[in-house]
């Protein structure tokens, strides 16, 4: 196989964690016979050198300032020059704002496919096979590529990064290509923070249609506030008007990944799971022992939440 091109990104803290993970994934593929690893970054040769330390055999700095806009139009000629220079037949991108746009654009421009948000990569019969989640996590799909060029974006935290090794050596070169963007970036902003945001809360307590009664959310809010967390709701509960849509967790709502997610009377349909499956620890309180949410939990109580939640609030107060 002809080699791997990793499209890396940097943030304020240096090489982005996802890009370090991509280099870890690329090394695994290289060990399986996928060829040498070339890394690409829009930035300086010093940054490119860092990519060698994280596992690349060689690195290319795309130095044209136009790439700072992050638009696909600006990036495409530089990435295509890097593909030509490296001879790679595999391109790895992160499932990031950049990768979500650049992956498909690169694919369609080169009449090949891109597999998005992949969690596993394998070399089989001299070709890349990628595994990704589908149907809100209910299914896994293993895909391959019809055309020679194989492009994937990789989900964060799916691969381990290698520790940086400044002693690793590899050639560093520069590319000046850039495209003229038809999309003009006027500015960027960070989200305003007021109170504990659902997406950033260390603890989230959510309720679903199984609550049977909108007033039950007062109980959940009390528990959430005791744990310095935020309160969420399933789409079904929001659609019934029981809780504000801004607090909806799920496919069409917010995506959360708190340290502790307490799901109260939520069955765990893929609509909801898509928004909270990244939670580090899940606790389910549900009457149905067979509910999907119970299965994916660390701890579960199979009982009526109306009795459990007030008792839990009292017990947690005692521990404080």
């Amino acid at each position, binding site marked *: 196989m002809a080699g791997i091109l990793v499209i890396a990104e940097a943030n304020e803290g240096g090489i982005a964690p996802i890009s370090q993970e991509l280099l870890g994934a690329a090394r695994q593929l290289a060990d399986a016979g996928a060829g040498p690893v070339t890394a690409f970054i829009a930035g300086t040769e010093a940054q490119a050198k860092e990519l060698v330390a994280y596992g690349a055999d060689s690195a290319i700095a795309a130095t044209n300032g136009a790439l700072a806009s992050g638009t696909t139009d600006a990036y495409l000629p530089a990435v295509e020059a890097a593909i030509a220079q490296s001879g790679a037949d595999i391109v790895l991108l992160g499932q990031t704002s950049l990768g979500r746009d650049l992956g498909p654009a690169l*694919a369609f421009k080169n009449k090949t*496919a891109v597999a998005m948000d992949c969690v596993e990569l394998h070399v089989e019969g001299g070709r890349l096979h990628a595994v990704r989640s589908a149907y809100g996590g209910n299914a896994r799909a293993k895909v391959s590529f019809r055309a020679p060029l194989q492009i994937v974006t990789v989900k964060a935290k799916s691969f381990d990064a290698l520790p940086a090794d400044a002693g690793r050596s590899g050639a560093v070169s520069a590319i000046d290509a850039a495209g003229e963007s038809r999309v003009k970036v006027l500015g960027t902003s960070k989200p305003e923070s007021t109170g504990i945001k659902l997406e950033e809360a260390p603890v989230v307590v959510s309720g679903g249609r199984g609550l049977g009664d909108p007033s039950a959310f007062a109980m959940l809010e009390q528990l959430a506030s005791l744990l310095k967390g935020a309160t969420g709701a399933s789409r079904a509960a929001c659609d019934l008007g029981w809780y504000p849509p801004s607090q909806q967790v799920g*496919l069409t709502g917010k995506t959360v990944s708190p340290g502790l997610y307490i799901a109260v009377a939520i069955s765990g*349909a893929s609509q909801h799971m898509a928004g909270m499956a990244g939670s580090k620890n899940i606790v389910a309180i549900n009457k149905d022992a067979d509910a999907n949410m119970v299965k994916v939990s660390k701890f579960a109580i199979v009982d009526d939440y109306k009795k459990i939640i007030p008792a839990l609030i*009292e*017990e947690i107060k005692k521990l404080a």
Partner: protein
Amino acid sequence: MNIIVCVKQIPDPETPSASFRVDEAAKKVIPAQGIAPVVNPYDPQATEAALRLKDAAGGGKITVISLGPETARDAIKHALAMGADEGVLITDPALDGIDNFQTAVALAKAIEKVGEFDLILMGRASADWDMGVVPTGVSQILGVPVVTLAKAIEANGATLKVDRVLDDGFQQVEVNTPAVISISNEFGEPRYPQLRQIMLAAKKTVQVWSAADLGLGADETGSANRWLPLEALYVPKVESNVEIIEGDTPEEKARNLALKLRAAKLI
């Protein structure tokens, strides 16, 4: 302003996981019994965006396109009931099992057949495959710019100001029509069709086009010609490590859970 909205019908994401089944040999999802397919939850937001832009422009036409089985007509009807003007259903057994890339090719051909457009709007992704590649694909094929994950769009003649969602914040961009824009779920609540509109929608035209009507060749259709061949489709084994917290009374269960959470340093 003439706008084309692409919508898709998918299995209901509210389907309980226990009812979700896959035919591993056919590499297909087995439709859950008694649960009707629904409009992809992201798509009504694209229709909503189209309606607001048409209103702001003081006129124009909104054409809704859907590719899928005959039942996908319901997804078109939903958009028509929200206020879109016309529908196009692309349906053909030859399109069964095609991937997102073949879909983008077919939609691009359908859009060219519809004719003049200022804007093509789509939901951010379809919630079944969740690839999110079709908006960019259609833009590449048609040679027009794309802006993904829009949460607000302001049109000033042929110039659009778009607020879009990034991983760590927001971005404002400017783009000229014609363009493709995908709409993020941050865009805001889509309107609910009112009874009168549902009745009006029944009178609106839905054209039906086949693969041949779009000029799609035999090498562009069918699952055998996927750009991204499906090697396997399966239900991952959920490694359930759940510890059911027991107790004689609800109070005891709650106490045992609180102690477990404390021991695990989670509270």
